[in-house]
């Protein structure tokens, strides 16, 4: 497993790509989930009871930053299929969408635009925020392990 990670991230371009995914995704999600505020002052705030949500955002961002570059490596270097890439992106989208559509500007925009359908979708994403984020983590973890496995086979790392 470490061999595979080393293989991908020995190329500095993939380290940069992983950082480019991790930092904006985590900060963006923390802003949208109201852990970070930009106005009138830049403030980070972790209300009691929301620690789990915070940890899940960090895990989703980290897994997305790990899995997506590995799949790009597979596609680019090994000319493999894009199938596993879909899992990583799907997991990232689920993780990102859950919770951020709450009472904030995104939820308000969705409900204002789509009316009762938007309200129902927002309510679902808000009410099941934690389970959805856990599902996203599971999808990303499965994608990670299948990617590792296929890289091992395709690169003949065991030989």
């Amino acid at each position, binding site marked *: 497993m470490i061999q595979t990670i080393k293989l991908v991230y020995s190329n500095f371009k993939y380290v940069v790509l992983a950082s480019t995914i991790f930092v904006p995704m985590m900060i963006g999600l923390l802003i949208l989930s*109201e852990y970070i*505020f930009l*106005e*009138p*002052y830049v*403030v980070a*705030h972790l*209300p*009691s*009871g*929301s620690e789990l949500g915070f940890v899940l955002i960090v895990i989703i961002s980290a897994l997305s930053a790990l899995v997506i570059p590995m799949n790009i490596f597979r596609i680019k270097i090994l000319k493999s299929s894009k199938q596993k890439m879909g899992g990583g992106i799907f997991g990232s989208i689920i993780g990102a969408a859950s919770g951020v559509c*709450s*009472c*904030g*500007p995104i*939820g*308000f*925009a969705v*409900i*204002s635009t789509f009316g*009762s359908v938007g*309200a129902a979708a*927002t*309510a679902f994403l*808000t*009410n099941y925020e934690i389970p959805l984020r856990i599902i996203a983590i599971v999808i990303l973890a499965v994608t990670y392990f299948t990617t590792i496995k296929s890289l091992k086979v395709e690169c003949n790392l065991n030989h």
Partner: protein
Amino acid sequence: MNKKGVIVGVIVVAIIAGITASYSSSQTETLNLDMGRTHGTISTAMGSPILGDPSAPITIVEFGDYQCEQCYAWFHETKPAIVRDYIDTGKVNLVFVDLAFLGKDSIPASMATYCAEDQEMYWEYHDLLYNSQESIDGGWANSERLKAFAYSLGLDFELFESCLDSEKYSKRVQYNIQQAKDNGIRGTPGFFIVGPDGQQKIGGAQPFLVFKNVLDSMI
């Protein structure tokens, strides 16, 4: 002649009763509403009663939804310190204006608070809603539960029920939602801190420290 007299008498009594009824119902509304009340750019005429000293130099206008979990977080995490340090000391007062948009139970919950206000229990009912919040449209703020809350506070149940069922305060809540939109509020909770020299917008359930900095700079 007698018959005519009776008919005229009945008509006169009916007219007097009608005038009295319409006068007394408009009196109820007038008692609750100061139609000219504004804070900064916001018309708070249809909002909540003022919490704290009405003559305080600074007003916090809170836009909120009773089903919003961030509003719940602000209510429990930040508001108690603001009440303790600024509202109870007479430096600041607070007005709640409804931005009820999250689900089908949001507007009835807002209407219910004004039905409680009819019985001078607005803030007690408001606090009870935020202490009872569960998932969006999960049934905790449906009509039956809203009535049960009124019952638990010892309100005149029949009066409250007829107020809620008749949607007496529907337009009042809609007016408040429009005020939020007109003032650029795009989510809950949203705040305007209105002082003698202007107003400052604060978006989201921000910590006490942020409110303290803004309030201290205005005092």
